[in-house]
């Protein structure tokens, strides 16, 4: 598991699972359509990624579908990391 995948997965578990919730979160577990993350709480995930990965995710890309699995979220992070201008 690469670093970003681990970062995202750990955050999802810490932020969204209630104590005693033993559901396993894999890279392909449906988060939003599976009812683990509601679209209302999704904003904290977006903000976390932006801060930790130093990126800006445009609102148009921050759709429930784009955030539906750890795998998709990691893909999104990679996409925006590439799009980021190199700091000088």
């Amino acid at each position, binding site marked *: 598991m690469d670093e970003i995948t681990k970062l995202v997965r750990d955050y999802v578990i810490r932020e969204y699972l209630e104590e005693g919730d033993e559901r396993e979160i894999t890279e392909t577990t449906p988060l939003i359509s599976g009812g683990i993350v*509601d679209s*209302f709480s999704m904003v*904290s995930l977006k903000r976390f990624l932006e801060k930790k990965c130093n990126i800006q995710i445009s609102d148009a890309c921050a759709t429930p579908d784009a955030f539906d699995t750890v795998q998709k979220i990691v893909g999104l992070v990679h996409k925006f990391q590439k799009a980021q201008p190199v700091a000088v």
Partner: protein
Amino acid sequence: MAFITAFRNRYQAEIDGIKAAGLFKEERYIHSPQWSEIEVEFPAGSKIKKCINICANNYLGLSSHPEVIAAAHAGLDSRGYGMSSVRFICGTQDIHRELENRLTEFLGTEDTLLFPSCMDANAGFFEACLNEQDVMIADRLVHASIVDGMRLCKAMQDTFKHSDMGHLQEKLQEHMDKRSRMIITDGVFSMDGDMAKLDEIVELAEKYDAMVFLDDSHASGFIGRTGRGTHEHCGVLGKIDVITTTLGKALGGASGGCVSGRRELVEMCRQRARPFLFSNSVAPVIVAGALKVLELITATTERRDKLEWNAQYWRGLLKDAGFDIKEGESPIVPVMLYDAKLAQDFARDLFAEGVYAIGFFFPVVPKGQARIRTQLSAAHEKHHLDFAIEAFKKVGEKHGVLGLGKKELLARAGA
């Protein structure tokens, strides 16, 4: 007219999708006033059936109370039927001011502003009072109208796990760089019937300089020793910065809502809240009825006491019968079934036995958390509840759920 076939087909396909997902809602027509016994036409066109109503928000049994009806009649005669105006043009009568003052006294706040509904109060409050420099931190189970209100506001949004004070504290710490923090919660949560830990919330708010927003729609009139609400129950009267509540449940059940709290926040709503500014004034007949409701419930706590007794009695009956219920102290008692289809079938069978209750399932409650939500009322007599429990037992037996705990019910649901 340009409702072309393609448009019609598109919407029909969407409606079919809702049906296929088992999420289609059908109306049930009630041919009587709202009460513990009602006459229901369901499905549409079928013979009218008398049944016990155990799913209304008529907590205090005042929706069809003769004194409330008489006061509403008198209000109709003396102040007319409608205002044909928003409040700030020519829609404010003396009785609107009087009701706002009575609500302020009742809720123990500084000022109050009426809204067409509590949905409107919640939709308008945040945008009127907060902006980009602020953050809103809401319990994850707050009512949909609060979610909508937060979406309309430019302040940063965040959430904390339901009633998890450790998580809330983390969030408050995270947002210390904001100009202001607002903690947002329901008093009694409508789906689970549990109460916010308002005393702890107030403590955290004081520690981290945060304001507290409370939607007490499912508490105003009956929670707390004299029915002031969750803040009375938790011993924090006067410490909540904003309370929104509805006149559409315990407080007469007609319609209308309010924002009540710190003077300046209420004033900001009077100046800026769009549903207040751009929607019609609450009708005089409702204002007159609500004034009578407040008079009745401040004169005696008899109704809330009876409601409390009913809720306790009903919880005991369900537990003795072997149902899995959500523990709590409120008159909202969810009977857990976990499976959406089972909840629907269960409600249908209850109706056949003369008990009107509704199954709730995703997306109204989380997946795998389907239930029958029962709600008590001061209009219930013991014999109503004794009748209802027999129906519950019969239907419970038919579906083989009596005596099963959460694990067994989940296994049975194939989860």
